[in-house]
């Protein structure tokens, strides 16, 4: 590929060259296409419920510590 040709396509034309530079599912339109929900087994669902409990518990502790430190004039 000579320098002149390279510069020409970098400037944005022709569209065929540009479109070939992207994978089909990299195009704006394809990236906005919906994805199906993932099906999870019972163990994975139980794990995610445990994760919810963990996240909410830890968040409560952290939020409490944060509020106390602000009230004390942190």
């Amino acid at each position: 590929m000579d320098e002149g040709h390279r510069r020409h396509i970098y400037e944005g034309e022709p569209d065929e060259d540009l479109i070939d530079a992207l994978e089909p599912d990299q195009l704006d339109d394809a990236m906005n296409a919906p994805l199906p929900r993932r099906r999870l087994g019972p163990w994975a669902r139980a794990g995610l419920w445990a994760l919810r409990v963990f996240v909410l518990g830890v968040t409560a502790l952290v939020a409490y510590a944060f509020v106390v430190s602000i009230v004390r004039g942190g």
Partner: protein
Amino acid sequence: MTDRGLTKARPAPLSGEDRVRSADRLRVLDARREGSRWRLLWLLIGPGILVMLGENDGPSMISYATSGATYGIGFFLPFILVTFLAAMVVQEMAMRVGAVTHRGYGELIFRRYGAFWGWLSSGDLLLTNILTLVTEFIAIRVGMGFFGVPAPIAVVLGVGLVAVSVSGGRYWRWERAALILGAFNLLFLVAAIMVHPHVLALGRAFATWQPLPGGNLQTMLLLLVSDIGATVTPWMIFFQQSAVVDKGMTPRDLPQGRLDVLIGGIAAAITGCGALIAAAVLFDHHVSIATLQAGAGFATALEKVSGFPVAAVFSLGLIEAGALAALTISASTGYAVGESISGGHSFNRRIKDAPLFYALIVGATALAGAVVLIPRAPLLAIALNANLFATALLPAGLVFLLLMANDRELMGSRANGRLANLASIAVIVGVAVAATAYAVVASVTAMTGGG
């Protein structure tokens, strides 16, 4: 992609975002065709280095410096290296998922795991990002304050930098500007060299992890978790996966993506250790950490012990650390919210094509800057709790990243192997234990009125 089963027919018209991204991709294809390995690497590095140096932000560098000033050169020096190894495991997965799926982390959570986790993740990120951005402005203010720059000017300069950086209408320009700024993270290495550390002590610390930290268990635990929180955080996952998508990386770019993460991790580990080593001189001179006011007094203390040049370099480093993190963390905010509401979320779009994305980036930054200027604002509480929030909620973020990286419907043959899963699970367990310990210690301290 042929192994994901999710391809669809190519639409004929190219959007403006496609046009900009494909022009950048043509350069990559040309470099690959010409066999120009260095040029290919140059074109493809960016997200990994930025995410690692971006996480060497104001509070992180202060955390490393506090470790050095409290315990000297010893256990925490090799510990920082281990935390960066953990960060590299996580960020390699984020890079790989982004390059293979062409979807950001927030979007994948929403679409594959539902609205509860989607909103929880992006809501958590928004909160912790704004808190962290406040700490970045504290760092910028402290750094500039050393040179006599008033706080309002420091804040205006910080917000102005973010606003200018997003005005290029192209991911490539934003990334390169941020990389140039990131190079100045090496100032912490310069500061470390300037204090003439004992080479034998450095070698002994890396070889034996000695001396171990002693004294107050709570202080040691808080620094331990703070250093973990200084290296692996939720915004890093959001940012790198989205940046990889915005850059247009594909599965063919995975080797360069991994090198990008490796280079970033090594550079960030070196500069993180640099901050610790530079501040360890305060330990050697028995300067009490209690006098350093959560980092604000480091430069002044270093000036008394090592002279103005070291203090000036350290202050410049703090300014850079805060400024680069303001760029990357505000970008991760724009990406996360844009992905959550399916709005435009790309630096390859013009401002009028993605107004919310750009407004969020500049707005979150301006809000954080304004908080720093509020008289008697609880800045110390925010600075101490920003990392705490991020670390506490990190395990959930890591679990979903692991689920995505093992999702064969999305990842096909690029899904995690056994080794990657073992390393990731070890990181998740380590972070969860540390986060729980940190949360319990902080809340007990709050209940008992300590701390």
